[in-house]
């Protein structure tokens, strides 16, 4: 096998044959990277220590979004302006506001991919969200059963369980 640079051909033994031991290690490495990528991208369960107020105060109007979908800074900005929350008054009492904010920040996105400060504090305006949904036509977002990009569960059938896997997508016809 042709190998122009030795450093790039670590998998090859000195005689140019593939070293079965190294090949095994490489396969394990690739598989573990793939599964890690999948669990990060597709699995976003709500941490078990969510305060009851998160469900009562936030998830009465929209799905309980996994905190890992926004950066700490974005959550902080959003929680500081609940009186004007995307066109509605979502104000909560100060005690609950502190409790929810702290929990969101503690569990906020940390990986660089998700950790940008979201434009308008919207998950749906982050660059990763836009890139992931770039094949969805404008007309699909407007369908009666979808209504808004904020309605994850319209297409991601297991969104409520924090699963956004590609295999669990069903785009409604209307």
């Amino acid at each position, binding site marked *: 096998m042709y190998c122009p640079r030795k450093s790039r051909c670590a998998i090859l033994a000195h005689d140019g044959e593939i070293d079965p031991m190294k090949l095994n290690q490489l396969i394990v490495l690739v598989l573990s990277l793939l599964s890690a990528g999948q669990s990060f991208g597709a699995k976003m369960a709500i941490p078990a220590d969510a305060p009851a107020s998160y469900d009562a105060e936030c998830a*009465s*109007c929209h799905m309980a979004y996994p905190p890992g979908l926004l950066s700490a800074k974005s959550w902080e900005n959003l929680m500081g302006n609940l009186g004007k929350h*995307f066109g*509605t008054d*979502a104000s*909560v009492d100060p005690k609950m506001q502190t409790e929810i904010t702290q929990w969101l920040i503690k569990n906020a996105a940390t990986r660089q991919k998700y950790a940008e400060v979201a434009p308008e504090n919207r998950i749906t305006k982050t660059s990763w969200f836009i890139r992931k949904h770039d094949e969805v036509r404008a007309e699909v977002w407007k369908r009666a*059963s979808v209504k*808004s990009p904020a*309605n994850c569960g319209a297409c991601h059938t297991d969104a409520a369980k924090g699963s956004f896997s590609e295999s669990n997508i069903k785009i409604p016809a209307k």
Partner: protein
Amino acid sequence: MIKTVLVILAFTTTGVVGAATPPELLKTYEAQSGKASSVRGEQFFNSKHGKEWSCASCHENPPNHDTKHIVTGKVIKPLAPVANPTRFTDDAKVEKWFKRNCNDVLGRECTAQEKADVLSWLMTVK
């Protein structure tokens, strides 16, 4: 003065803080304003008040079944006590939602009279 006493009485006679019944809450709001009108309450519920939404935009009329939030599509449980016995049983929760939703629909908080009217109508919904 008498009204204030009545209000305090209405809240304290509910026993546990926060716990209430729809008729008790109605009495409280009437004590702060005047006699409720369910006819006025239904009109208020259906009206857009010169803005974009009415109460019925999310709760529908009659609000005796699961409905969907007009923006997010999230399911909202029935508002009428007949279809959802947990409604209007927690005064803090009731006040929180009147504040939020009146700001959304009217761009201001609702008066005690408006709350009394709407609640009295909701109590008649079958």
